[in-house]
């Protein structure tokens, strides 16, 4: 298994919001990808957006552009 890295992990209220996140990030070439929500954040399931922490501002701007409200932003080993 690959070594874990510290990542910015954005969680959402719904899968629809996660898909909206992926769509805007692909469109605007914002780095990251969808991953299962890490156990360190929530014991439930669902999708989260994982990206290098240095891209936080870019990611927040992308969400703001489409009116997307995240559940939470975390930094954790992924």
């Amino acid at each position, binding site marked *: 298994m690959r070594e874990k890295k510290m990542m910015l992990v954005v969680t959402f209220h*719904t*899968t*629809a*919001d996660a*898909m909206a996140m992926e769509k805007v990030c692909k469109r605007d070439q914002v780095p990251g990808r*969808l*991953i299962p929500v890490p156990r360190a954040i929530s014991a439930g399931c*669902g999708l989260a957006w994982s990206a290098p922490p240095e891209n936080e501002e870019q990611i927040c701007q992308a969400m703001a552009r489409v009116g997307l409200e995240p559940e939470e932003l975390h930094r954790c080993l992924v």
Partner: protein
Amino acid sequence: MIYLDNAATTLRKPPQVAAAVAEAITSMGNASRGAHDASLSASRTVYEARCLTAELLGCPRPDHVIFTCNATEALNIAIGGLFAPGDHIISTDLEHNSVLRPLYRLEREQGVAVDFVPADRRGCVDYGDFDRLLRPETRAVVCTHASNLTGNMLDLARLGRFAREHGLLLVADCSQTAGAVPIDMGALGVDVLCFTGHKGLMGPQGTGGLCIRPGVEIRPWKVGGSGVQSYSCTQPEEYPTRLEAGTHNGHGLAGLAAAERFLLEEGVDRIHEKETALARRFYEGVRAIPGVTVYGDHGAPDRAAIVSLNLWDRDSGEISDALAEEYGIATRPGAHCAPRMHQALGTVEQGAVRFSFSYYNTDAEADEAIRAVRTLAEETAPQGA
């Protein structure tokens, strides 16, 4: 076969619909149930279908497009999840049983009162009746956009203004119009728009849904797996998850998305123009044939592409069967799940033969149907007529 039963379901779909379903059923996983490629592919497809539906119907937010298996389920969710004992609802005689039966059940089981705006012998309503039926406890107008029997349309923009003026919700059954008539729910003032995917939207059966204006709260009637918040004892509050427990019809929604892309490319206004021109051509061809009674208001400025008729006093089932067996023309006889509409038209005993047109029908098919109706009218004429 000449297929003129498009108000029941469109038989001919854009070829990309079947291709999308075939591709999905051999490649897609379960949407919202993981982050591997197959699941994400399904999640992307479902989300794309939300975006396209929102664009087609003027829903302000894709996450307020809720998918169900048909319009009946959508209407049950809306009608069952919006009201409380003591509330009053105004509906109309134009409704399909998918509206009527949920309303009757609310009356019977929840102490909700319902009044129906009557239709006249042409299937038209007097809009003044909405004012006359208004009570202090009235909460909503629940009505169809177009009668599935006559093709008569209700003026949703007018009803939207009426609803706003009196603080009511407007719940619209757009089963006959979604994809076939240009619709912008925001501009019309519709709060909840229910649709099916397999008629005018030209998608697969087993698809449908409701578009909800942000701020309108509908209680879920089913709860269960959602792919998120799994340790919560209650269904997540947020739309669309609140109303979508269980696995989506992802394969069907892939087909619906393909159909919706086609509709957006072709233009719904163009589709509506062609369909109503076909219905008008058929209507003009049959209206003066001796023995033919055509129902509905065909002088109205806008209509769904439906023409229902009877020959003499003959059973509509007998005529529809003759059309199918002798001419290869598919129509729908009987009651069309619209009991109040038939009562208003005086056709409870006879039913009616419904001809309904799609974008893929042709003038030649309409003309062939006219010839068949003329011949059958001659053959079934009573002696001395």
